[in-house]
């Protein structure tokens, strides 16, 4: 358990809500698992920088936050430990994704697919991202700049690449072994871009030759439609969590038929 030093997390607006994006987690349940999202992540050689991490003043907010909240699991120089994977070379996109969706720092013993509000403020996250980026060898996916894209091709790409796990409605779905692909309904465009590039947790990673930057813009724009910001998607009424025919059947029985049975009961007499 790491306790956040900072006050209320809050990049304004959507960022706060961002937690959901869920595309898995920096993957690493606290117990060691293979580290898929950072194939280059070998415990970084503790070189000239010494045991206190990269050469920055200790007063640097990123360094201070890192040592308070991250170093106990990921090591002073991001070399990783029994309790957490190495961070060297994971790239800013991964760090920003994990922190801004509240997946890191872990709040319970086990890393959970349930996402929360970010623990750190946007400034603090930026500082941490910058600090972790200093770990050798550096590199890794950068935070993508996501802009408005073509919603039609976004819909088509979403159905090809995303809907199998995250559901066509964006509400997520069940995977094996108690894991699930999370709902996208709170994800910000940036987080969607990060998840596509990083492939957190069980999620596949999509490099630029599979999904280009324009494709990410388009997908993020379509996810925005799914989030119903324009209020036109659930135009049929109560969406029932967009979970499909199962809740629909429940409503038919519990509301529809129950109402009709009550009426029939009023209209007819009872058994003597």
């Amino acid at each position, binding site marked *: 358990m790491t306790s956040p030093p900072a006050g209320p997390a809050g990049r304004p607006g959507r960022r706060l809500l961002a937690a959901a994006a869920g595309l898995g987690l920096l993957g690493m349940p606290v117990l060691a698992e293979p580290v898929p999202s950072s194939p280059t992540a070998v415990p970084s050689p503790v070189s000239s920088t010494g045991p206190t991490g990269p050469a920055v003043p200790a007063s640097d907010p990123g360094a201070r936050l890192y040592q308070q909240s991250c170093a106990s699991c990921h090591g002073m120089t991001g070399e990783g430990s029994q309790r957490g994977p190495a961070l060297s070379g994971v790239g800013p996109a991964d760090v920003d994704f994990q922190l801004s969706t509240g997946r890191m720092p872990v709040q319970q013993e086990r890393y959970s697919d349930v996402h929360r509000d970010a623990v750190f403020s946007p400034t603090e996250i930026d500082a941490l991202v910058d600090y972790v980026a200093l770990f050798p060898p550096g590199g890794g996916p950068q935070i993508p700049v996501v802009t408005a894209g073509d919603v039609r091709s976004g819909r*088509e790409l979403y159905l*090809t690449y995303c809907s199998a796990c995250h559901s066509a409605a964006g509400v997520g779905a069940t995977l094996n072994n108690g894991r699930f692909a999370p709902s996208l309904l709170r994800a910000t465009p940036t987080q969607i871009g990060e998840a596509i590039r990083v492939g957190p947790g069980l999620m596949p990673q999509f490099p630029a030759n599979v999904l280009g930057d324009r494709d990410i813009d388009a997908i993020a724009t379509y996810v925005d439609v799914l989030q119903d910001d324009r209020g036109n998607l659930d135009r049929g*009424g109560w969406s029932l969590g967009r979970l499909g025919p199962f809740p*629909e059947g429940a409503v*038919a029985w519990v509301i529809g038929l129950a109402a009709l049975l009550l009426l029939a009961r009023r209209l007819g007499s009872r058994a003597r």
Partner: protein
Amino acid sequence: MITRRLYRALDSRLGTTSVGRTALAKVFPDHWTFMFGELALYCFIALVLTGTYLTLFFEPSTSEKIYDGAYGPLAGSEVSSAYASTVSLSFDVRAGLLIRQAHHWAALLFVGAIVLHLLRVFFTGAFRRPREINWVIGMTMLALALLNGFTGYSMPDDLLSGTGLRIIYSVVLSIPVVGSWIALLAFGGEFPTDATTPRLYISHVFIVPAIFAALISLHLAIIIRQKHSQFPGPGRNERTVVGSRLWPAYTVRSLSLATGVLAVVFALGGLVQINPVWIYGPFNPAQATSPAQPDWYVAWGDGALRLFPRIEFHVFGHLVPAPFLPAVGLGTVTFMLLYAWPWLERWRTPDRAEHQVLERPRERPWRVAIGAWALTFFAVLLVAAADDIIARLTAMPVTGILRTLQILVCTLPFVVAAVAFGVARALKAGTASSLAELTAEDVRAGLSGADGPGPADEAPDQSIQLWRNPDGTWRWRWSGGGEQLTSNEAYLSRDEAVAAARIAFAGVPIDRADPPEGVILPGPRQEPGWGTRLAAGVVWVALAVWGRRRSKTDDRTEV
């Protein structure tokens, strides 16, 4: 005046008077469970009304076209006409979404009402002689309702329904020997083909509804011919029907039920979203969405597919694929047993007599147990069809949930059946009239196999009186067991009245003395129930508040 002349014209051409008199006086039993079939009928009417409107806009074809309507993310996409027109119905046709959703909700309610009707008939023994034909017709209608529900679900050519269609195709493929021929003949080629949607359409909007209309007519004609069955009670025997007359009481009640069905259907259609195909996207054989479930009435089959263990075997070197036993096998066995039930029961019991008076469920503990077993079994399968949603909501591994449900589906039905059997025995042995009144002694008596007093015999103090109305017509009235029952028709002669009373109550003495002339027979009266009082109270309060408000505003305007 005009009505009278019109009627005379009609009567002189068709001779409708005697039929009309009998029809208006037809008696329906009053118990509320007798309305389930009517519920289904009115759902069917709602389906026909809304469905007809939908056919004006839906294009049953998979030929590609560009959607250019108001739904932005689809605008400019090349999709099948079926899908494009369904999205158009939802976004571009004013009130189209209301009607589309109302149609889908009516379908869910329709099958639900049929199932309720089936349960009432099953548990009260209403399928016994002479009603086996109607049982078979009803079963056929249930099967057709499932079929038509599924074809309707599949027609929009969206990703979810395409997946469902693919599963059905695979299930048909799994039939030994002829599976591949049946599947490809029915679908018009290897799935997916352009031939399928038009076939679904003509079956959904014409073939099955036409058969349905014919079967409903037959079902009703038979019930009119045989007259309704009824629960036991004073004056209710094998030669009578006791209740309210078609005109006016039952007509008004039935209209209330019909409008009630339409109210629920349209309220749900407007307020609760169902099958948002624009979100699911057009069908593509290489795409998938999750969670994927069918509508509830076929979900038990999907649940069986999920729960059934991985069993594939070879017969003479030929493959019997995994879906065969849980889907084809279970479905066939279920419907065969349902169809055969009246004869199965006759085979196991010595009872071959005609029955117009129903049994209370408790009188047949074994039947209650078997019904409870089946209900529980299918309920577990229904839940199993949502195992992935349950896994998600509870954050448990889906394999663990599957394993649990596999155990439950093998055990829970027996537990519930045993409990139901015990309760039925206890109710039968004791004097309790409902579950709430059941005592420990009753349960003990039930376990020891004692039989209770059974239905009371006909009251010994029965009598029949004749009445002459001021207009010269005759009626008869039966009294006994503290109740009085009036003949449903007025007769032109005393002999007719006596003959009718003789049929209804053969052994009961008829008061042959000339009845006093000019005594008007008062109709039956009844006290309002608590629901009526409650509703009246609510309206009364509303009126009071409204009146007070009005007087206040009046005051203000005066000031």
